[in-house]
């Protein structure tokens, strides 16, 4: 398990985008992103990319996402 004070990993940023971050890491990652604008922009880019792919090819684009 990742230490609470450890730097955020790349996988965690994607888990954040996907709403898959464990509750015990959400607060830490959110705080870290608030202090790192470059990576916050990167997260926005991942989200835009995922949305763009989904908009073009998603068979269930309008379905409610499983959480």
């Amino acid at each position, binding site marked *: 398990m*990742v230490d609470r004070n450890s*730097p*955020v*990993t*790349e*996988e965690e*940023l*994607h*888990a954040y985008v*996907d709403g*898959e971050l464990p509750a015990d890491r959400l607060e830490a990652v959110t705080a870290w992103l608030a202090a790192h604008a*470059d*990576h916050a*922009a*990167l997260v*926005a*880019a*991942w989200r*835009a*990319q*995922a*949305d*763009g*792919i*989904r908009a*073009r*090819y*998603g*068979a*269930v684009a309008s*379905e409610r*996402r*499983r*959480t």
Partner: protein
Amino acid sequence: MFSFTESPRLTEFERQVLPHLDAAYNLARFLVRNDQDAEDVVQEAALRAFRFFEGFRGENSRAWFLSIVRNTAFTALKRNRMDEETVVFDEELHGGQIPPLDVGLALDRAHDRQTVRAAIEQLPAEFREAITLRELEGMSYKEIADIAGVPIGTIMSRLARARVQIKTYLDGGRPALRRVK
């Protein structure tokens, strides 16, 4: 009115599996990368699913059927050598530091469907699988891990690396040589 051709098993199969044919075709199409092979994969997978339907316990018919589709597709890839590259999972990358990366352009309206398809198709098969199940089907990490038969951490790593590679491609870093179909 066609009740004479029906059986309870067939009816239940149609109810549980047929709604997922589009998702099955989407997955197969991105895995084998051409229409005809994708149709063959889905047909074979549907036959297998029907044969083994009694073993299905009714929890998540989409994940169950897509796992059959994915296994059928990977078997076809091996048989036809349609996919020469294999992924060697780099454990060191999992849980690693975030590499410096130019934010660059987000995927936008300038990227048409074919370009986006090409960006996904240039990925290794295991990455195509993760991206298709996540971005197109909206599946959870757990569902994707179960379908692919690997730990969730492996799916997280594949997704992260796949997205970087897609982004690099869309930002203009695509390989100089185009694949010949």
